[in-house]
């Protein structure tokens, strides 16, 4: 049972999507698990053949329990059974590195990036690799990642277990989610020395550019201001490594990519903060479609395991409700949370003149063990700078 977020201590295996003998490749969805928060689609992180399903459907097991065994290689090879990764995953262990253009081309050509071997820097998948794969060239399957670390090393200590509640009834789920959020946030406030910064950002240029851009776009491809804010935050995070990563075992571990957690409120209460993968290298179109997809699936209760466990920094946007600013609580083991309030028309002084401008207040809550106000300040300034050049996002 993988850890699908730091607030999860156990999960119920709802449904197997594979059976013994099925060939699987990295990234395939093999099971659906019910956490206290949602039904999550669990991906497999290595290629092989399903050997045995160890946990029957409907069973609730603690995080770390082996769910199934997988044989390496193809069906014809000598089986060497080994357990499916069941310990909490190092958050960045199963990330695919691919350039935005490679992702776009892969989408157009229907190529599964998980099956492409990257030839770029640090094994990143390039456009050429994707085209190569699409042309039917022999492309070796990406090697399976190293076996996951045992639960004791590298993984954050689990939060206090919420009382076991049978999932199913909406009331039960809402209660279980409230308890899980409470346990995680209490741990955050207990352990993380937060510091808070805020700045006001003039959104005139960004919104004018957006309105112009949307004029030429069909409705399904139009951008929302959220996409600009997320893109700016992701790029600023990439340039401020001390805010993008994890506090684990009394030390800061910077993340390799920027997987932007997006706080999404659920109808009926509660929230989840799944990841937009490689948000700093995604185009606005990719971020926008990713965001729409994530919000729709989050509210329908169909998120994927990697989305739940991968975020390296989280953004909460409470502007929709009209509040001016939010001082966030960091999601352990992350070390920073970015907040955006509503874009409001405000008096704004510039070059000795006062005018009315659309202003958003951006905030940062960050872990003082991992960074100082200097880095945090630089981060918010970078967000502002990016939003003054929306055409470059």
């Amino acid at each position, binding site marked *: 049972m993988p850890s699908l977020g730091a607030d999860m201590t156990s999960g119920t295996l709802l449904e197997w999507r594979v059976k013994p003998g099925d060939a699987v490749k990295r990234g395939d969805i093999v099971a659906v698990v019910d956490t206290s928060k949602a039904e999550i689609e669990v991906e497999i992180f290595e290629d092989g053949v399903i050997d045995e399903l160890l946990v029957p459907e409907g069973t609730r097991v603690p995080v770390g329990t082996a769910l199934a065994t997988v044989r390496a290689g193809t069906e014809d090879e000598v089986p060497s059974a080994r357990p499916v990764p069941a310990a909490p995953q190092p958050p960045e262990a199963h990330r695919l590195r691919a350039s935005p253009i490679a992702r776009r081309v892969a989408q157009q050509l229907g190529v599964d990036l998980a099956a492409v071997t990257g030839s770029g820097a640090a094994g990143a998948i390039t456009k050429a690799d994707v085209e190569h794969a699409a042309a039917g060239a022999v492309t070796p399957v990406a090697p399976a990642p190293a076996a996951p670390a045992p639960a004791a090393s590298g993984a954050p200590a689990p939060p206090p277990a919420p009382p076991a509640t049978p999932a199913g009834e909406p009331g039960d789920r809402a209660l279980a989610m409230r308890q899980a959020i409470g346990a995680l946030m209490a741990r955050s406030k207990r352990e993380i020395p937060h510091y808070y910064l805020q700045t006001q950002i003039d959104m005139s240029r960004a919104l004018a550019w957006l309105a112009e851009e949307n004029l030429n776009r069909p*409705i*399904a491809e*139009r951008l929302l*201001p*959220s996409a600009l804010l997320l893109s700016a935050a992701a790029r600023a995070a990439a340039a401020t490594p001390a805010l993008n990563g994890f506090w684990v075992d009394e030390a800061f571990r910077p993340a390799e990519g920027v997987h932007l957690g997006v706080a999404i409120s659920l*109808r*009926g209460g509660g929230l989840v903060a799944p990841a937009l993968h490689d948000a700093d290298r995604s185009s606005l179109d990719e971020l926008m479609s990713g965001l*729409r997809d994530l*919000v729709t699936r989050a509210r329908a209760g169909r998120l994927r395991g990697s989305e739940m466990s991968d975020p390296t920094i989280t953004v909460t946007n409470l502007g929709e409700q009209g509040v001016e600013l939010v001082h966030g609580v960091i999601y352990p083991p992350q070390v920073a949370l970015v907040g955006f309030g509503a874009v409001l028309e405000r008096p704004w002084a510039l070059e000795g003149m006062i005018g009315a401008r659309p202003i958003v207040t951006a905030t940062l809550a960050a872990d003082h063990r991992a960074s100082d106000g200097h880095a945090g300040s630089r981060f918010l300034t970078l967000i502002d700078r990016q939003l003054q050049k929306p055409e470059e996002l």
Partner: protein
Amino acid sequence: MNEQELHDVVIRALTEVAPDVDPAAIDPQTDLTDQLDIDSIDFLNVLVNVHEQTGVEIPERDYPKLATLDDAVAYLLAAQPRGAGTDA
């Protein structure tokens, strides 16, 4: 589509993003985003859905004209293509 059909299209799109909402309980003259607690992404999804069902182009500057159920139906009724080649 007639008024009733457009009404049904909008209701269906709304209940897709807010499945817990009872269509009969929607006040046709109250702002939908406030009333149903939906955000800008939900609202965009509603408009995309409505566009796909009706073929009506909805420029971004017109979004406020679809803020309530009654307004949305009236807008779509006025804007929908009237047969091939005659939508001006």
